[in-house]
Protein backbone atom coordinates (compact mmCIF):
# COMPACT_ATOMS: atom_id res chain seq x y z
CA UNK A 1 0.00 0.00 0.00
CA UNK A 2 2.79 2.37 0.89
CA UNK A 3 4.57 1.44 -2.30
CA UNK A 4 1.54 2.38 -4.39
CA UNK A 5 1.21 5.73 -2.65
CA UNK A 6 4.88 6.42 -3.26
CA UNK A 7 4.40 5.42 -6.88
CA UNK A 8 1.44 7.73 -7.34
CA UNK A 9 3.39 10.65 -5.93
CA UNK A 10 5.26 10.90 -9.23
CA UNK A 11 4.18 12.94 -12.20
CA UNK A 12 1.83 11.02 -14.53
CA UNK A 13 4.18 11.24 -17.50
CA UNK A 14 7.11 10.00 -15.43
CA UNK A 15 5.15 6.89 -14.41
CA UNK A 16 4.17 6.17 -18.01
CA UNK A 17 7.71 6.67 -19.30
CA UNK A 18 9.18 4.42 -16.61
CA UNK A 19 6.64 1.74 -17.44
CA UNK A 20 7.54 2.11 -21.12
CA UNK A 21 11.17 1.52 -20.29
CA UNK A 22 10.28 -1.64 -18.35
CA UNK A 23 8.00 -2.78 -21.17
CA UNK A 24 10.68 -2.25 -23.79
CA UNK A 25 13.11 -4.31 -21.76
CA UNK A 26 10.62 -7.12 -21.21
CA UNK A 27 9.83 -7.24 -24.92
CA UNK A 28 13.43 -8.08 -25.81
CA UNK A 29 13.32 -11.24 -23.67
CA UNK A 30 11.74 -12.67 -26.82
CA UNK A 31 15.29 -12.87 -28.20
CA UNK A 32 15.71 -16.16 -26.34
CA UNK A 33 13.60 -18.03 -28.88
CA UNK A 34 15.32 -17.16 -32.17
CA UNK A 35 18.66 -17.63 -30.43
CA UNK A 36 17.87 -21.25 -29.63
CA UNK A 37 16.10 -21.91 -32.92
CA UNK A 38 18.76 -20.45 -35.17
CA UNK A 39 21.45 -22.24 -33.18
CA UNK A 40 19.70 -25.53 -33.82
CA UNK A 41 19.47 -24.68 -37.52
CA UNK A 42 23.15 -23.78 -37.62
CA UNK A 43 24.09 -27.05 -35.94
CA UNK A 44 22.01 -29.05 -38.36
CA UNK A 45 23.57 -27.09 -41.21
CA UNK A 46 27.06 -28.01 -40.08
CA UNK A 47 25.97 -31.64 -39.72
CA UNK A 48 24.36 -31.69 -43.18
CA UNK A 49 27.45 -30.23 -44.82
CA UNK A 50 29.69 -32.74 -43.08
CA UNK A 51 27.62 -35.70 -44.26
CA UNK A 52 27.26 -34.47 -47.82
CA UNK A 53 29.76 -31.78 -48.82
CA UNK A 54 28.46 -31.81 -52.40
CA UNK A 55 25.07 -30.52 -51.28
CA UNK A 56 26.58 -27.80 -49.10
CA UNK A 57 25.46 -24.87 -51.23
CA UNK A 58 21.80 -25.86 -51.12
CA UNK A 59 21.99 -26.81 -47.46
CA UNK A 60 23.54 -23.45 -46.53
CA UNK A 61 20.91 -21.56 -48.55
CA UNK A 62 18.06 -23.41 -46.83
CA UNK A 63 19.68 -22.85 -43.43
CA UNK A 64 19.86 -19.10 -44.08
CA UNK A 65 16.27 -18.94 -45.32
CA UNK A 66 14.93 -20.90 -42.37
CA UNK A 67 16.99 -18.93 -39.86
CA UNK A 68 15.83 -15.62 -41.32
CA UNK A 69 12.20 -16.67 -40.85
CA UNK A 70 12.96 -17.84 -37.30
CA UNK A 71 14.31 -14.35 -36.63
CA UNK A 72 10.85 -12.85 -37.11
CA UNK A 73 9.78 -13.07 -33.47
CA UNK A 74 12.88 -11.16 -32.38
CA UNK A 75 12.22 -8.51 -35.00
CA UNK A 76 8.59 -8.08 -33.93
CA UNK A 77 9.75 -7.67 -30.32
CA UNK A 78 12.36 -5.14 -31.47
CA UNK A 79 9.67 -3.15 -33.30
CA UNK A 80 7.53 -2.96 -30.15
CA UNK A 81 10.54 -1.96 -28.04
CA UNK A 82 11.60 0.69 -30.55
CA UNK A 83 8.08 2.12 -30.68
CA UNK A 84 8.10 2.37 -26.87
CA UNK A 85 11.43 4.15 -26.88
CA UNK A 86 11.33 6.43 -29.89
CA UNK A 87 7.70 6.94 -30.87
CA UNK A 88 5.93 6.45 -27.55
CA UNK A 89 2.17 6.65 -28.18
CA UNK A 90 1.17 6.35 -24.53
CA UNK A 91 2.87 9.31 -22.92
CA UNK A 92 0.35 11.84 -24.19
CA UNK A 93 -2.72 9.68 -23.72
CA UNK A 94 -5.44 11.17 -21.55
CA UNK A 95 -6.65 8.92 -18.80
CA UNK A 96 -5.54 7.31 -15.62
CA UNK A 97 -1.76 7.23 -15.37
CA UNK A 98 -1.53 3.85 -13.74
CA UNK A 99 -3.77 2.18 -16.33
CA UNK A 100 -1.64 3.54 -19.17
CA UNK A 101 1.56 2.56 -17.38
CA UNK A 102 0.27 -0.96 -16.82
CA UNK A 103 -0.68 -1.15 -20.52
CA UNK A 104 2.89 -0.28 -21.43
CA UNK A 105 4.26 -3.07 -19.24
CA UNK A 106 1.60 -5.43 -20.60
CA UNK A 107 2.52 -4.68 -24.19
CA UNK A 108 6.13 -5.50 -23.43
CA UNK A 109 5.28 -8.70 -21.55
CA UNK A 110 3.06 -9.81 -24.43
CA UNK A 111 5.99 -9.96 -26.84
CA UNK A 112 7.72 -12.60 -24.69
CA UNK A 113 5.41 -15.00 -26.53
CA UNK A 114 7.87 -14.73 -29.39
CA UNK A 115 10.10 -17.30 -27.68
CA UNK A 116 7.87 -20.15 -28.82
CA UNK A 117 7.72 -19.47 -32.57
CA UNK A 118 11.44 -18.65 -32.47
CA UNK A 119 12.33 -22.10 -31.17
CA UNK A 120 9.73 -23.89 -33.29
CA UNK A 121 10.61 -22.21 -36.57
CA UNK A 122 14.29 -22.79 -35.83
CA UNK A 123 13.57 -26.49 -35.35
CA UNK A 124 11.77 -26.55 -38.70
CA UNK A 125 14.72 -24.77 -40.30
CA UNK A 126 17.15 -27.28 -38.83
CA UNK A 127 15.18 -30.27 -40.03
CA UNK A 128 14.75 -28.70 -43.46
CA UNK A 129 18.48 -28.10 -43.71
CA UNK A 130 19.26 -31.65 -42.65
CA UNK A 131 16.96 -33.13 -45.27
CA UNK A 132 18.13 -30.83 -48.04
CA UNK A 133 21.65 -31.91 -47.18
CA UNK A 134 20.61 -35.55 -47.57
CA UNK A 135 18.56 -35.05 -50.76
CA UNK A 136 19.53 -31.78 -52.47
CA UNK A 137 17.42 -32.59 -55.51
CA UNK A 138 14.22 -32.18 -53.52
CA UNK A 139 15.14 -28.75 -52.27
CA UNK A 140 12.11 -26.85 -53.60
CA UNK A 141 9.53 -29.25 -52.17
CA UNK A 142 11.28 -29.33 -48.80
CA UNK A 143 11.58 -25.54 -48.68
CA UNK A 144 7.90 -25.06 -49.54
CA UNK A 145 6.76 -27.34 -46.75
CA UNK A 146 9.20 -25.74 -44.34
CA UNK A 147 7.90 -22.24 -45.14
CA UNK A 148 4.30 -23.33 -44.81
CA UNK A 149 4.96 -24.92 -41.44
CA UNK A 150 6.91 -21.91 -40.22
CA UNK A 151 4.11 -19.56 -41.27
CA UNK A 152 1.58 -21.54 -39.23
CA UNK A 153 3.99 -21.57 -36.28
CA UNK A 154 4.23 -17.79 -36.45
CA UNK A 155 0.54 -17.19 -35.75
CA UNK A 156 0.74 -17.04 -31.95
CA UNK A 157 3.57 -14.56 -32.26
CA UNK A 158 1.32 -12.45 -34.48
CA UNK A 159 -1.48 -12.66 -31.91
CA UNK A 160 0.98 -11.34 -29.29
CA UNK A 161 2.01 -8.51 -31.61
CA UNK A 162 -1.61 -7.56 -32.22
CA UNK A 163 -2.35 -7.41 -28.49
CA UNK A 164 0.77 -5.31 -27.92
CA UNK A 165 -0.18 -2.91 -30.72
CA UNK A 166 -3.77 -2.67 -29.46
CA UNK A 167 -2.54 -1.86 -25.95
CA UNK A 168 -0.25 0.82 -27.33
CA UNK A 169 -2.25 2.42 -30.10
CA UNK A 170 -5.93 1.64 -29.53
CA UNK A 171 -6.02 1.22 -25.78
CA UNK A 172 -9.53 0.09 -24.83
CA UNK A 173 -8.92 0.11 -21.09
CA UNK A 174 -8.50 3.84 -20.43
CA UNK A 175 -12.04 4.42 -21.61
CA UNK A 176 -13.50 1.92 -19.19
CA UNK A 177 -12.30 3.78 -16.12
Amino acid at each position, binding site marked *: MQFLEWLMSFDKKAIILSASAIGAGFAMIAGIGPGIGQGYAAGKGAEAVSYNPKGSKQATMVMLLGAAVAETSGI*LALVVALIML*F*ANPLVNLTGSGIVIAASAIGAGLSMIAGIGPGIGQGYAAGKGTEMVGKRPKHQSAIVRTMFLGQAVAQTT*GIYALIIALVLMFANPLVRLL
Partner: protein
Amino acid sequence: MEEGFGPKVIFDLWGIPVTETVVNTWIIMIILVVISLILTRGLKKVPKGKQNVAEALVESINNLTTQTMGEDKKAFSSYMGSLFLLLLFANLFGLIGLRPPTADINTTFAFAGLTFVMIHFFGARRKGIGKYLKGFLEPFPLLLPLNIMGELATPISLSFRLFGNIVGGIIVVSLLYGGLASLSAALGLANFPIFQAGIPVIFHMYFDLFAGVLQTFIFIMLSMVFISLAMD
Protein backbone atom coordinates in the same frame (compact mmCIF):
# COMPACT_ATOMS: atom_id res chain seq x y z
CA MET B 1 17.57 11.93 -32.67
CA GLU B 2 15.41 14.77 -31.44
CA GLU B 3 12.70 14.27 -34.00
CA GLY B 4 12.72 10.49 -33.74
CA PHE B 5 13.48 8.00 -36.47
CA GLY B 6 10.44 8.54 -38.63
CA PRO B 7 10.65 9.73 -42.23
CA LYS B 8 11.01 13.49 -42.61
CA VAL B 9 8.55 15.43 -44.72
CA ILE B 10 10.43 16.91 -47.67
CA PHE B 11 7.76 19.12 -49.21
CA ASP B 12 4.00 19.50 -49.61
CA LEU B 13 2.22 18.64 -52.82
CA TRP B 14 -1.20 20.30 -52.96
CA GLY B 15 -1.57 19.94 -49.22
CA ILE B 16 -0.33 16.34 -49.05
CA PRO B 17 2.98 15.99 -47.21
CA VAL B 18 5.56 14.14 -49.29
CA THR B 19 7.99 12.22 -47.09
CA GLU B 20 11.50 10.87 -47.61
CA THR B 21 9.94 7.47 -48.26
CA VAL B 22 8.05 8.68 -51.33
CA VAL B 23 10.97 10.71 -52.71
CA ASN B 24 13.39 7.80 -52.28
CA THR B 25 10.94 5.47 -54.00
CA TRP B 26 10.81 7.90 -56.94
CA ILE B 27 14.62 7.81 -57.07
CA ILE B 28 14.59 4.00 -57.18
CA MET B 29 11.96 4.06 -59.93
CA ILE B 30 14.09 6.40 -62.00
CA ILE B 31 17.20 4.25 -61.46
CA LEU B 32 15.39 1.05 -62.44
CA VAL B 33 13.81 2.61 -65.55
CA VAL B 34 17.16 4.01 -66.70
CA ILE B 35 18.91 0.66 -66.14
CA SER B 36 16.17 -1.15 -68.05
CA LEU B 37 16.39 1.27 -70.97
CA ILE B 38 20.18 0.97 -71.12
CA LEU B 39 20.19 -2.83 -70.92
CA THR B 40 17.48 -3.33 -73.54
CA ARG B 41 18.82 -0.90 -76.12
CA GLY B 42 19.45 -2.57 -79.47
CA LEU B 43 18.62 -6.19 -78.61
CA LYS B 44 20.19 -8.67 -81.03
CA LYS B 45 19.44 -12.34 -81.56
CA VAL B 46 23.02 -13.26 -80.66
CA PRO B 47 23.69 -11.49 -77.38
CA LYS B 48 26.78 -9.37 -76.89
CA GLY B 49 28.09 -7.38 -73.97
CA LYS B 50 25.45 -5.91 -71.74
CA GLN B 51 22.71 -8.02 -73.30
CA ASN B 52 24.45 -11.03 -71.74
CA VAL B 53 24.02 -9.43 -68.33
CA ALA B 54 20.35 -8.75 -68.98
CA GLU B 55 19.71 -12.27 -70.25
CA ALA B 56 21.56 -13.86 -67.31
CA LEU B 57 19.47 -11.82 -64.88
CA VAL B 58 16.15 -12.67 -66.52
CA GLU B 59 17.07 -16.32 -66.84
CA SER B 60 18.03 -16.65 -63.19
CA ILE B 61 14.76 -15.03 -62.07
CA ASN B 62 12.77 -17.30 -64.39
CA ASN B 63 14.60 -20.34 -62.99
CA LEU B 64 13.96 -19.28 -59.41
CA THR B 65 10.25 -18.77 -60.11
CA THR B 66 9.75 -22.09 -61.93
CA GLN B 67 11.74 -23.98 -59.29
CA THR B 68 9.77 -22.50 -56.40
CA MET B 69 6.31 -22.25 -57.89
CA GLY B 70 6.23 -24.90 -60.59
CA GLU B 71 6.54 -24.87 -64.38
CA ASP B 72 2.97 -23.74 -65.03
CA LYS B 73 3.41 -20.54 -63.05
CA LYS B 74 6.26 -19.08 -65.06
CA ALA B 75 4.20 -15.95 -65.78
CA PHE B 76 4.67 -14.80 -62.20
CA SER B 77 8.37 -14.27 -62.78
CA SER B 78 7.85 -10.81 -64.29
CA TYR B 79 6.12 -9.54 -61.13
CA MET B 80 8.49 -11.37 -58.80
CA GLY B 81 11.55 -10.12 -60.70
CA SER B 82 10.38 -6.51 -60.61
CA LEU B 83 9.55 -6.76 -56.91
CA PHE B 84 12.91 -8.38 -56.24
CA LEU B 85 14.83 -5.56 -57.94
CA LEU B 86 12.74 -2.88 -56.27
CA LEU B 87 13.13 -4.35 -52.77
CA LEU B 88 16.83 -5.01 -53.33
CA PHE B 89 17.55 -1.40 -54.26
CA ALA B 90 15.23 -0.15 -51.52
CA ASN B 91 16.91 -2.16 -48.77
CA LEU B 92 20.41 -1.25 -49.94
CA PHE B 93 19.70 2.47 -49.82
CA GLY B 94 21.23 2.58 -46.36
CA LEU B 95 24.61 2.01 -48.00
CA ILE B 96 24.47 5.39 -49.73
CA GLY B 97 23.20 7.28 -46.72
CA LEU B 98 19.59 7.68 -47.82
CA ARG B 99 16.68 6.40 -45.78
CA PRO B 100 15.44 3.07 -47.21
CA PRO B 101 11.80 3.35 -48.33
CA THR B 102 11.17 -0.08 -46.78
CA ALA B 103 11.90 1.47 -43.39
CA ASP B 104 8.31 2.75 -43.59
CA ILE B 105 5.54 0.35 -42.59
CA ASN B 106 3.35 1.85 -45.34
CA THR B 107 5.68 0.61 -48.09
CA THR B 108 6.12 -2.88 -46.69
CA PHE B 109 2.44 -3.24 -45.89
CA ALA B 110 1.55 -2.21 -49.45
CA PHE B 111 3.72 -4.97 -50.87
CA ALA B 112 2.50 -7.51 -48.34
CA GLY B 113 -1.07 -6.47 -49.13
CA LEU B 114 -0.36 -7.06 -52.83
CA THR B 115 0.86 -10.57 -51.99
CA PHE B 116 -2.27 -11.16 -49.89
CA VAL B 117 -4.55 -10.08 -52.75
CA MET B 118 -2.60 -12.24 -55.20
CA ILE B 119 -2.85 -15.29 -52.94
CA HIS B 120 -6.62 -15.14 -52.70
CA PHE B 121 -7.35 -13.88 -56.21
CA PHE B 122 -5.25 -16.50 -57.98
CA GLY B 123 -6.29 -19.21 -55.55
CA ALA B 124 -9.96 -18.49 -56.16
CA ARG B 125 -9.42 -18.18 -59.89
CA ARG B 126 -7.51 -21.45 -60.17
CA LYS B 127 -9.80 -23.52 -57.99
CA GLY B 128 -13.14 -21.82 -58.52
CA ILE B 129 -14.73 -19.66 -55.85
CA GLY B 130 -16.86 -22.42 -54.27
CA LYS B 131 -14.08 -24.94 -53.89
CA TYR B 132 -11.67 -22.27 -52.69
CA LEU B 133 -14.00 -21.02 -49.96
CA LYS B 134 -14.75 -24.57 -48.93
CA GLY B 135 -11.01 -25.04 -48.41
CA PHE B 136 -11.27 -22.80 -45.37
CA LEU B 137 -13.50 -25.37 -43.70
CA GLU B 138 -10.74 -27.98 -43.90
CA PRO B 139 -9.96 -30.06 -41.86
CA PHE B 140 -12.85 -29.26 -39.49
CA PRO B 141 -15.53 -26.58 -40.04
CA LEU B 142 -14.99 -25.54 -36.43
CA LEU B 143 -11.50 -24.35 -37.33
CA LEU B 144 -12.86 -21.62 -39.65
CA PRO B 145 -11.96 -18.68 -37.34
CA LEU B 146 -8.46 -20.08 -36.85
CA ASN B 147 -8.00 -20.52 -40.59
CA ILE B 148 -9.11 -16.94 -41.23
CA MET B 149 -6.74 -15.61 -38.56
CA GLY B 150 -3.95 -17.67 -40.06
CA GLU B 151 -4.61 -16.12 -43.47
CA LEU B 152 -4.61 -12.62 -41.97
CA ALA B 153 -1.32 -13.37 -40.21
CA THR B 154 0.42 -13.69 -43.58
CA PRO B 155 0.50 -10.04 -44.68
CA ILE B 156 1.09 -8.88 -41.09
CA SER B 157 4.14 -11.09 -40.66
CA LEU B 158 5.48 -10.35 -44.17
CA SER B 159 5.24 -6.59 -43.70
CA PHE B 160 6.49 -6.42 -40.12
CA ARG B 161 9.42 -8.76 -40.77
CA LEU B 162 10.79 -6.58 -43.56
CA PHE B 163 9.95 -3.31 -41.76
CA GLY B 164 11.47 -4.42 -38.47
CA ASN B 165 14.71 -5.66 -40.01
CA ILE B 166 15.33 -2.51 -42.02
CA VAL B 167 14.28 -0.03 -39.33
CA GLY B 168 16.32 -1.88 -36.71
CA GLY B 169 19.30 -1.60 -39.03
CA ILE B 170 18.96 2.13 -39.59
CA ILE B 171 18.49 2.83 -35.88
CA VAL B 172 21.58 0.83 -34.90
CA VAL B 173 23.69 2.45 -37.61
CA SER B 174 22.58 5.98 -36.73
CA LEU B 175 23.16 5.34 -33.02
CA LEU B 176 26.60 4.06 -33.95
CA TYR B 177 27.41 7.18 -35.97
CA GLY B 178 26.15 9.36 -33.11
CA GLY B 179 28.28 7.45 -30.63
CA LEU B 180 31.39 7.70 -32.82
CA ALA B 181 30.82 11.42 -33.33
CA SER B 182 30.63 12.02 -29.59
CA LEU B 183 33.76 9.89 -29.16
CA SER B 184 35.57 12.14 -31.62
CA ALA B 185 34.25 15.21 -29.80
CA ALA B 186 35.37 13.85 -26.43
CA LEU B 187 38.90 13.47 -27.77
CA GLY B 188 38.81 17.03 -29.01
CA LEU B 189 38.59 16.04 -32.69
CA ALA B 190 35.04 17.29 -33.22
CA ASN B 191 35.73 18.45 -36.76
CA PHE B 192 37.67 15.37 -37.84
CA PRO B 193 35.20 12.44 -37.92
CA ILE B 194 38.09 10.03 -37.98
CA PHE B 195 36.30 7.22 -36.17
CA GLN B 196 33.40 7.35 -38.56
CA ALA B 197 35.58 6.37 -41.50
CA GLY B 198 36.32 2.68 -41.02
CA ILE B 199 34.45 1.21 -38.05
CA PRO B 200 30.89 1.55 -39.40
CA VAL B 201 31.79 -0.48 -42.52
CA ILE B 202 31.30 -3.78 -40.70
CA PHE B 203 27.91 -2.70 -39.35
CA HIS B 204 26.85 -1.50 -42.81
CA MET B 205 27.93 -4.82 -44.27
CA TYR B 206 25.81 -6.75 -41.81
CA PHE B 207 22.73 -4.57 -41.44
CA ASP B 208 22.48 -3.12 -44.93
CA LEU B 209 24.12 -5.63 -47.25
CA PHE B 210 23.53 -9.01 -45.58
CA ALA B 211 20.22 -8.33 -43.88
CA GLY B 212 18.90 -6.28 -46.81
CA VAL B 213 19.60 -8.94 -49.42
CA LEU B 214 18.43 -11.79 -47.20
CA GLN B 215 15.16 -10.07 -46.30
CA THR B 216 14.48 -9.28 -49.96
CA PHE B 217 15.01 -12.92 -50.78
CA ILE B 218 12.81 -14.07 -47.92
CA PHE B 219 9.98 -11.72 -48.95
CA ILE B 220 10.08 -12.95 -52.55
CA MET B 221 10.37 -16.65 -51.64
CA LEU B 222 7.55 -16.48 -49.08
CA SER B 223 5.30 -14.62 -51.55
CA MET B 224 6.00 -17.20 -54.23
CA VAL B 225 5.46 -20.16 -51.91
CA PHE B 226 2.18 -18.81 -50.50
CA ILE B 227 0.77 -17.96 -53.93
CA SER B 228 1.67 -21.34 -55.38
CA LEU B 229 0.30 -23.18 -52.32
CA ALA B 230 -3.01 -21.32 -52.68
CA MET B 231 -3.21 -22.32 -56.32
CA ASP B 232 -2.51 -26.03 -55.82
